[in-house]
């Protein structure tokens, strides 16, 4: 709202979703708001046309609708023209748990990340969301913002500072490096606490940016940790886990092994709320801890031979 008040170039387009959430915006800035109807392809094309005429356009919808439904418009229209369009997804991961797989956004990060020009953001809480939204507004070109559903707990209780593409250290030191992207951060925080209570020291970074990725941070953690663990409410293919695997595979120095936590295979077709599905798919704090300990028990004896420092 602050951004739209200060900058009349900003426009918000919705594909007929955002009941109540968008009402204040629509009422306050009627000339900057447009409900295009249930038509995401047209929404994205119109957003491109507006952006090419100098507008800064946010497209808004839930789950896979603002991305997969109109993927080619994003690729050919938004990205190829480097149009100033910010795609906002509400309900990343299992937010809409009981509604079924149509509403589970579990491949969106992978698909957006592979598009040229696209900058990809999945903030971990409201504080991160505020900051990356402003950064996306201030940075020309296509951005994807993958958000939760609202009402998630605040994790950063003190002001945080990070720049474009940087990871955020919540706990910078530890043997096991936990990396989290998006709203699953709360479970990463809890898992880390459980690990510490069981005598396993763990660092934790939130990575609100998947593109650009904080390469320096990843290489440092790979060099100095026993184990790197990625945590995301998303397929382990192509998202945070995939991105980190790509970086570490090309990293030439000695490096810690990698564990990717997320949706492993098949559709998330179990029925239940977000917490239930996180548990089922190995993303509850307890499940994260179990998996980390399991892998540590396998790699620990070889740690020194791999050149990983204590």
């Amino acid at each position: 709202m602050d951004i739209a008040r200060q900058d009349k170039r900003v426009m918000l387009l919705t594909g007929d979703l955002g009941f109540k959430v968008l009402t204040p915006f629509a009422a306050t800035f009627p000339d900057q708001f447009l409900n295009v109807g249930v038509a995401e392809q047209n929404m994205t094309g119109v957003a491109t046309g507006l952006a090419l005429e100098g507008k800064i356009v946010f497209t808004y919808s839930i789950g896979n609708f603002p991305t997969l439904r109109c993927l080619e418009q994003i690729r050919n229209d938004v990205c190829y023209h480097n149009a100033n369009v910010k795609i906002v997804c509400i309900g990343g991961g299992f937010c809409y748990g009981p509604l079924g797989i149509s509403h589970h956004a579990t491949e969106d990060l992978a698909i957006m990340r592979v598009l040229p020009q696209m900058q990809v953001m999945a903030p971990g809480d409201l504080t991160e969301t505020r900051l990356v939204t402003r950064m996306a507004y201030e940075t020309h070109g296509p951005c994807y913002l993958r958000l939760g559903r609202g009402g998630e707990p605040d994790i950063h209780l003190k002001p945080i500072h990070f720049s474009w593409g940087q990871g955020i250290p919540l706990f910078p030191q530890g043997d096991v490096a936990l990396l989290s992207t998006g709203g699953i951060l709360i479970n990463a925080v809890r898992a880390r606490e459980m690990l510490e209570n069981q005598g396993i020291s763990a660092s934790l970074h939130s990575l609100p940016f998947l593109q650009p990725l904080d390469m320096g941070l990843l290489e440092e953690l790979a060099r100095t940790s026993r184990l790197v663990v990625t945590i995301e409410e998303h397929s382990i293919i192509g998202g945070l886990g995939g991105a980190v695997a790509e970086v570490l595979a090309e990293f030439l120095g000695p490096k810690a092994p990698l564990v990717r936590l997320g949706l492993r295979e098949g559709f998330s077709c179990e029925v239940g709320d977000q917490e239930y599905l996180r548990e089922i798919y190995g993303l509850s704090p307890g499940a994260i801890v179990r998996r980390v300990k399991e892998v540590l028990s396998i790699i620990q004896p070889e740690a020194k031979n791999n050149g990983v420092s204590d």
Partner: protein
Amino acid sequence: MDTRQLALKIRRHAILMTNRGRSSHIGSILSMADIMAVLYGQVLRKRPDNPNWPERDRFILSKGHAGAGVYAALAETGYFPVDWLPRHCAQGSKLCGHVSHIGIPGVELSTGSLGHGLSVGAGMAYAGKLDKKDYRVFVLLGDGECDEGSNWEAILFAAHHRLANLIAIVDYNKIQSLGPVAETLELEPFADKWLSFGWRVREVDGHDHDQLAASLDIRSEIGSSPFCVIAHTIKGKGVSFMENTVLWHYRSPQAEEFEAALREVEDPIIA
């Protein structure tokens, strides 16, 4: 500028370009050559030496496979040198088969996948209306392209928002990629469809320059509906053996066919 002369030049360039580039879609380019000539020779408000002039009319080729026709029209009206054209589809060239804006002055939008142009054009028209600019947005679509559902989303949108500054032109040559439109996915009653979606419609002979100019060079009253010109055309128009055939959607003119095609669009000025 003499639009008939320009149409002939566009046809001749297109035959040369698709021959040298060994590229397809000559039938689609010949089909729309007169529309392009009337737009670029007469209708569009433009400044070729300042392609981003804010007051210009916008033109989007949504049937991007006919890109050579846009390149030819732009070159002949001074956006870039005509001697770029023979490099169409050549290794390292900027002129790719489906129209692309990168490095090409005057191309508003890159297309190639069908059903994209009208939405983007509607966005430009919406911005123009919002900002009280008086530029017009012209979008040229193919008939086969109208199979794409995204067009009908845009058609709904433009009528709902009364985008009077948006003009859709359909190059209705009745032949799509694999066969006749009527046998593939019938569009008729085509004009009625646009009308029922809330557009104003005019049907014209898409090779009659006077009819094209009279229907395209309009400036609608603010608040009226968007405008659709259904241009009845002949695929391959101007080269007798290419006319009304499916074959020349994909075939590149080579050897004797190339020579014969060129003879039919003789123009002493650019020969």
